[in-house]
């Protein structure tokens, strides 16, 4: 909630600063679009503000760092309490007499050595105690353990730091939150601050360090590059097979009544079935090895490419086909020189969608069952609470998916230069 408020505040503030500060100082570009006065409603005049993009990415990293106590970020949200503190409790004996005792608390960072301290017992029937607890954790404090009068003798804790407490209730003091269990023990939790615990969200430097460690030493018997390579390999083989079958099938459906009639029900039925729903069946049939993965990705790419190729054929202007016939072209020549090039834009659109779906499907399939691969890596890491590997894996999967899309767009601009210009 606080993070959301901060995020919105940064959004608004940086907008105001860039709009009224930076843009005034820097000379704006004077191209044609910048001279348009109507931009609200003119989509072509809306261009991404590079300042906004940079600030957006920086903000995410700053928030991530600030709320995880990163060393890379100068400002931090209040961290968890670490160090020594104390609270007192008041015990009441059966006869109504009361005595105070102090609980000395040592809060340590999880993973560091915590030394148990000896404390002098103090006066009265309630004796002082000492506990240590990890930051973000809580501990049960059996304060009457060393007291002269314990619960068995009818003595009860009735207040903490002067605030009355009953079984099931809780009080908050400077030292933290103290709750009383139904049986009368105290449960102590030190203040957590506003930072995330590393096992929920590690700081950026931990993720980067883990990236270098995993790329050097590997994880789960395979190096990082092997994990990524196998995921990419499956995607590319599955996609290529899907395209090799799907494109001719789509052409056939666009060119022949019989093919259209025969395959229409199959394609229209299989298209809305998400490839993820096929994972269990593919595992039953082909196991968790490469064959199953590739069959799954083949099926994921097949229908998309079929429909793209069919749409490509139907997108050919009939005058082009007529012109080619009256120039003496044969059917084969028309397929080769008119229909195939003319459907390239549609096929590329389909290929981009198919690559995206395949990449998502391979990660999901590896999450379910695999011996290697990016999805398997993050799945296994999550079982061991290795959140830094999980986050590293997610970032790498995102970067690779984005990279694939950029490559496809470059290939499209190179192979289909007439797209959108006819």
């Amino acid at each position, binding site marked *: 909630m606080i993070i959301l408020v901060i995020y919105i505040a940064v959004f608004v503030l940086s907008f105001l600063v860039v709009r009224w500060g930076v843009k005034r100082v820097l000379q704006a570009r004077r191209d044609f679009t910048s001279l348009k006065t109507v931009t609200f409603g003119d989509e072509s005049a809306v261009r991404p503000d590079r300042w906004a993009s940079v600030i957006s990415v920086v903000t995410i990293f700053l928030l991530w760092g600030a709320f995880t106590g990163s060393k890379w970020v100068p400002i931090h949200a209040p961290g968890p309490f670490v160090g020594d503190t104390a609270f007192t409790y008041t015990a009441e004996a059966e006869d109504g007499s009361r005595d105070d005792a102090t609980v000395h608390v040592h809060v340590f960072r999880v993973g560091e050595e915590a030394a148990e301290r000896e404390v002098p017992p103090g006066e009265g029937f309630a004796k002082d105690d000492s506990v240590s607890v990890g930051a973000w954790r809580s501990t049960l404090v059996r304060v009457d353990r060393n007291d002269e009068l314990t619960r068995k003798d009818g003595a009860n804790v009735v207040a903490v730091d002067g605030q009355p407490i009953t079984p099931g209730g809780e009080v908050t003091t400077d030292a933290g939150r103290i709750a009383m269990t139904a049986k009368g023990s105290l449960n102590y939790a030190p203040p957590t601050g506003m930072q995330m615990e590393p096992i929920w969200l590690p700081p950026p430097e931990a993720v980067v360090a883990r990236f270098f460690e995993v790329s050097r030493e590997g994880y789960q018997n395979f190096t990082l590059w092997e994990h990524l390579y196998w995921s990419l390999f499956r995607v590319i083989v599955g996609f290529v097979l899907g395209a090799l079958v799907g494109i001719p099938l789509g052409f056939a459906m666009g060119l022949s009544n019989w093919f259209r009639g025969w395959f229409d029900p199959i394609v229209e039925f299989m298209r809305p079935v998400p490839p993820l729903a096929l994972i269990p069946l593919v595992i039953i049939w082909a196991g968790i090895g490469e064959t199953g993965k590739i069959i799954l990705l083949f099926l994921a790419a097949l229908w998309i490419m079929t429909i793209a190729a069919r749409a490509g054929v139907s997108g050919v*202007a009939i*005058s*082009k086909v*007529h*012109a*080619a*016939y*009256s*120039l*003496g*072209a*044969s059917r084969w*020549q028309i397929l080769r*020189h*008119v229909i195939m*090039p*003319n459907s*390239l834009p549609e096929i590329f659109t389909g290929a981009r969608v198919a690559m995206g779906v395949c990449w998502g499907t391979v990660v999901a399939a590896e999450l379910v069952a695999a011996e290697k691969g990016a999805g398997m890596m993050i799945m296994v890491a999550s079982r061991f609470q290795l959140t830094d590997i999980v986050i590293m894996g997610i970032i790498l999967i995102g970067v690779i998916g984005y990279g694939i899309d950029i490559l496809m767009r470059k290939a499209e601009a190179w192979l*289909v*230069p*007439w797209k959108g*210009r*006819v």
Partner: protein
Amino acid sequence: MSTLNIEHLSMRFDLPNGGYVQALEDVTLELKSGELMSVLGPSGCGKTTLLNIVAGFLAPTEGRIVLNGHEVTGPDAERGMVFQQGALFEWMSVRDNVSFGPRMKGQRRAEYAANVDHLLEIVGLRDFKEKSVYELSGGMQQRVALARCLANDPDVILMDEPLGALDALTREKMQGLVLKLWKETGKTIILITHSVEEALLLGERLLVMAPRPGRIHREYSLPFADMGVGKDLREVKKHPEFAEKREEILSMIWDMEEEIMGRTEEAGA
């Protein structure tokens, strides 16, 4: 030589609601080699259907087309088409578009290169042969379409509103080019147009068609195409007979349109 005979052509097809459309009824024509005939008529008069049947894209329900003594049964390189727009191949350069026909016949570059260069020279695109067609203006694209059709050396050229998508100034220039190509190559040409002026300027013969059913309404023989060759077409338009014919044909088509409107209203009432 190449005589085109259109014999008792009828075209009738069923509609899904049980009715039918009589697109053409008993159209008979003879075109001699080297004639340029323009075809005019209100929309729905079947002029594009007629052209598509001659091209071989549609089969008539009655009658037949005979070219050079053999019957037309499908599209063929002997009958070239020029479309209004969008029929060029964007993935090919200007030169590859123009050489498409010869290449499809399996000719080698050495065989067709000289002719292609010559045609590009005639249509004024010599310096554009390496360009992509999407980089050209509409008028230039139609020049490519004309050159592409001529590169195949067809006996008959069928033009379906070839200048319809061009702006008025470009259109006038292109009309001159069509006349020039017609005279230089001596091709038989059927030209469909919506513009009465264009039909008068370019057509040695002018066919006015009437709708519902599509049929020949009237035919003219005109002197303007011969007058216009190599001259400023605006001079031809100033000819008193030109203005007279234009008015006559315009009012003829107007009457047909009115009649259609009246009939639709009756049907609606």
